[in-house]
């Protein structure tokens, strides 16, 4: 791997760290439940990006399947919270 790509991946990780901290801040102060659900959804997106960038940096596909799991957890969590907010029950 060239030094160019290494530097680029370091910059990406720093930006993702800042974005994750901002998401956690909104999750902490968010006035109501839907704000926190939105922050949770984008925190899952940040984690997916961190996993992809680390896969490129370590040059291994070992953790690439975790992308699927995080996508499923984010989608199902958001959908369940939305259903619960709207109807008072999930199903």
């Amino acid at each position, binding site marked *: 791997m060239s030094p160019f790509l290494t530097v680029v991946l370091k910059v990406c990780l720093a930006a993702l760290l800042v974005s994750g901290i901002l998401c956690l801040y909104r999750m902490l102060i968010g006035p109501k439940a839907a704000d926190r659900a939105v922050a949770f959804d984008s925190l899952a997106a940040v984690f997916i990006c961190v996993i992809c960038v680390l896969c490129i940096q370590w040059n291994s596909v070992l953790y690439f399947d975790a992308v699927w799991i995080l996508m499923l957890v984010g989608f199902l969590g958001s959908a369940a919270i939305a*259903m619960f907010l709207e109807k008072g029950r999930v199903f």
Partner: protein
Amino acid sequence: MPTLAEVIVALLCLLGTFLIALTGIGLVRFPDVFCRMHAAGKAGTLGVVLVVLGATVHFAGTEQDVWMRGVLAVFFQFLTSPAATHLLARAAYVCDYPLSERTAVDELRRYLPSRPDQVFNQE
């Protein structure tokens, strides 16, 4: 000297990370929950898709099925993320979450009745 594939991977990762950072800034800066969903729904989806595509391009020639996993993950993200955002926005609207005071038009009010939030009404 970086090769062409590395330049493509770097561009995809930088663009996706930029969009994810915009999502974080929008989550903190926007006034009400629907504006925050606007930031998190669109930019978050496209950012994730670009970064996963970057990883897919990087691992494209190494193993047999890595590119397929990446492309399927992109497809799945495009399938699920708008649905989740739509469900959350509808639930927030039905639960009578407050709009920003700079909201000019609210055309949905005629079609979608809302009730006060009983489950999560506490701050």
